[in-house]
């Protein structure tokens, strides 16, 4: 109940800020105040607020619990992406005056026709990014209110599109900055509380995964989804009717609806195909799902670091800075704010392994940050902490998905269909509907898998377009168009295949699941080779040089 209240108050506050937070001036002297630009620190906070999505607030902790410490490479990538943004795009992008990536394409290549292709890519990236946000919101809402998952997702869709329609993003900067503060404090306070008040024993266990993972107390585990899991030693569990069931060491399958109570001290079974919780694989800080840890880590790093600069809603925010110079400085500020935030997800993951390991079996690790405080701290304090995290997660969802939906709607109405006046509200409604429909069947797919997919597509499409467009004079329209097409098809196809279809084992599975290592070079090469064979217009050099002239 407290959680519902907390979420409600975050929502109401955001709406009030969004609608009335525009600086209002009553006299002429205030006119000057109103016409001054937003300060860099506000802007940096707004960017960080929009950027920290459900993937960072919920997904990271969940993946640490499930796959191990290597997951934190995602967080490093998310922050390192901004280093690439500072170095490669922030300043020049601001000088071009472009608001969106399609705008930049028009500036640099002078072809309004490329807009439609760019619009398609925007659509793909934004949908891939939106679906996990809705999933996260659905999970959190259904968890705190006890409603089914689909109600949560539907509610989330209504809330976001409703708040945009009500003008809740008119002063997006202040709303997003407010959400950064919410996310940081609402995740940090419970994390610090948990660290300080958990027993020394728990803390030591959290830092010593090699001691193995055992249920801290008799724990009922209700399999809401069918699962296959492995045990290293035999365990005797009880069913709710009181019957004892002996589970031998090895693989077991259970159907949905089964309920077992694991006795205190029993080793945690781990789902087939996942690393043993706390095992060597789990505690080595590398991403390892398919057996090629270094390749997977590098490919994911490439995807995230380079994908960041290709994300349409990231690029848009630099338009708010008055000059190229401030745009760059703002991006540096964002790195600082992100670094501060990313100290906390690990805490939930590590403590979650000790206190709520059953989430791994239930395929519900994305909820660990919300579930953990109530499990660890009994009574009202736990409920309050849970409410804080839930509200923070909801804030993450709200700011990111409104930013994404607006970018999606802008692309849909302005670039793809080229309506004479963008019918923004209609486009927002359509975008939200599609994202909700796609989120409904995505319940068991990890938030981060989908988010990294979006990053991979961005890194294989807009990243080469921006990098070559800004730093290479000879990029041509034909080169850009063919590179974008190749990038979007290969990146979307590869990850889609690995998620939705069975994959052959070994290298191919890894190449499909983490395709950035080959799709990004492929897209770059296509753009360069095709550009070599075509001629850039005479003004192309001017267009490039202007991006770098102070």
């Amino acid at each position, binding site marked *: 109940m407290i959680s519902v209240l907390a979420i409600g108050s975050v929502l109401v506050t955001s709406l009030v800020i969004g609608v009335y937070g525009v600086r209002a001036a009553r006299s002429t002297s205030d*006119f000057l105040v*109103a016409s001054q630009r937003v300060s860099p620190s506000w802007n940096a906070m707004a960017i960080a607020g929009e950027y920290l999505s459900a993937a960072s607030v919920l997904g990271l902790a969940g993946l640490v619990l499930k796959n191990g410490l290597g997951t934190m490479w995602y967080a490093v990538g998310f922050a390192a992406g901004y280093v690439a943004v500072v170095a490669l795009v922030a300043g020049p992008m601001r000088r071009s005056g*472009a608001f969106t990536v399609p705008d930049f394409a028009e500036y640099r290549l002078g072809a309004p026709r490329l807009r439609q292709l760019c619009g398609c890519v925007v659509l793909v990236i934004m949908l891939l990014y939106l679906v996990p946000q809705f999933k996260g919101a659905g999970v959190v809402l259904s968890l705190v209110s006890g409603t089914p998952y689909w109600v949560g997702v539907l509610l989330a869709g209504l809330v976001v599109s409703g708040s945009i329609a009500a003008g809740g993003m008119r*002063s997006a900067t202040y709303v997003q900055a407010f959400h950064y503060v919410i996310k940081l404090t609402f995740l940090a306070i419970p994390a610090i509380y948990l660290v300080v008040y958990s027993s020394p024993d728990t803390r030591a266990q959290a830092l010593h995964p090699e001691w193995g993972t055992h249920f801290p107390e008799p724990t009922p585990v209700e399999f809401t989804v069918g699962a296959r899991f492995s045990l290293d030693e035999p365990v005797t569990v009880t069913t709710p009717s009181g019957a004892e069931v002996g589970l031998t060491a090895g693989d077991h399958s259970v159907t949905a609806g089964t309920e077992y109570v694991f006795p205190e001290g029993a080793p945690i079974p781990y789902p087939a195909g996942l690393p043993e919780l706390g095992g060597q694989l789990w505690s080595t800080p590398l991403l390892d799902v398919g057996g090629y840890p270094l390749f997977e880590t590098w490919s994911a790093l490439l995807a995230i670091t380079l994908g960041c600069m290709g994300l349409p809603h990231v690029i848009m925010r630099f338009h708010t800075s008055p000059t190229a110079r401030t745009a760059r400085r703002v991006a540096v500020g964002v790195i600082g704010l992100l670094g501060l935030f990313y100290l906390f997800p690990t805490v939930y993951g590590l403590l979650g392994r000790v206190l709520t390991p059953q989430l791994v079996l239930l395929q519900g690790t994305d909820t660990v940050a919300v579930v953990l405080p109530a499990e660890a701290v009994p009574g009202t304090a736990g409920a309050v902490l849970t409410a804080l995290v839930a509200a923070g997660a909801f804030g993450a969802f709200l700011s990111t998905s409104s930013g994404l939906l607006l970018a999606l709607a802008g692309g849909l109405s302005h670039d793809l269909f080229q309506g004479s006046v963008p019918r923004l509200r209609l486009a927002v409604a359509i975008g939200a509907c599609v994202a909700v429909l796609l989120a409904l069947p995505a319940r068991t797919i990890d938030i981060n898998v989908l988010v990294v997919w979006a990053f991979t597509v961005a890194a294989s499409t807009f990243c080469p377009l921006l990098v070559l467009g800004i730093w290479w004079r000879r990029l041509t329209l034909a080169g850009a168009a063919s590179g974008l097409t190749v990038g979007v098809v290969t990146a979307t196809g590869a990850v889609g295949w690995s998620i939705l279809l069975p994959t052959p084992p070994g290298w191919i599975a890894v190449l499909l699941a983490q395709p950035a290592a080959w799709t990004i070079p492929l897209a770059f090469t296509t753009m360069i080779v095709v550009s070599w064979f075509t001629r850039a217009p005479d003004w192309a050099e001017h267009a490039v040089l202007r991006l770098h002239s102070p």
Partner: protein
Amino acid sequence: MRQVHALGADLQDGLHGRKVPSAARRLRQLLAVDGVVLADLDGPVAAHGKRPDPEEVETLLAQVFEYGSNARTRLADGTSVCAVPLYVADELAGSLVASGHPLEADVEAAAALVSDSLDHAALRRARARIAAADLRTLRAQISPHFVHNALAVIAALVRTDPDRARHLLSDFADYLRYGFSEKGDYATLSEELEATQTYLELQRARFHDRLDISVRMAPEVLPVAIPFLVVQPIVENAIRHGLERKEGRGHISVSGFGEGPLCVIEIEDDGVGMHPDLARSLLAGTGPESRSVGLANVDQRLRAVYGPEYGLVIETAPGEGTKVTVRVPRFTRGVVAR
């Protein structure tokens, strides 16, 4: 027919455009001759097909330019060559030379066609110049009425409230610097708002503070580049035609926010409003001369820069106040504030 139309397109950048060789090819096909040479006053610029000896062409051109009339000659191999002058805006601009038994009347007709196309090209360039000049006219035109009022107000205050007079005078100087700025055709919304503020400050002094102002700006649209002097003329219109005639206090509000890829600026007053027919005729460019300066000019410039769908939207009725909405893309290629 298609050839004739394409000829016009080829010549749209004048005799020195990129597609002039293609125009020469088309002319040769149209005239069904062996060769065609297009020349400006300095000599040939493009040719297609068999071309006569350069010296022959030069003599022929010299003859055409000397007398301003047609010239014919017969070459050693028996083909005849005909040269006809090209006139752009009644001024000699070049010549069309056809070789290989052309009919003189045909060549003359073709030369007339080329002259017309070149004329169009010149007109198109002139139109762009006029559009740029329009903007400058607007800057100069706002001032007389306002400069007079402003100076009168300041003069009245000099004795009673010298401090305020000094402030206003410096505001006035700022305003003039912005209005007469030669920096370019575009400014950021933030700069435009500052200019509007100084304008409003002066108007408030004149209205003896009978004027309420509220501004609500979403900060993310402030760096958007918009054509120079878009907001201020609308505010001026609201004051001159909406609030000046109203009894008692008047209120004017300026708000701006982002709407996806667009930037929306709304200027609303609670003045006497306008008859819809008057507003309609103003925007159609058929309104009374005295009032067609502000709104109509802004509307025209917005459409010229962004395209027809981005013209002003006016909501008004007599006695109901007026709301003017400017809706422009946040980015348009070539619109850069300097």
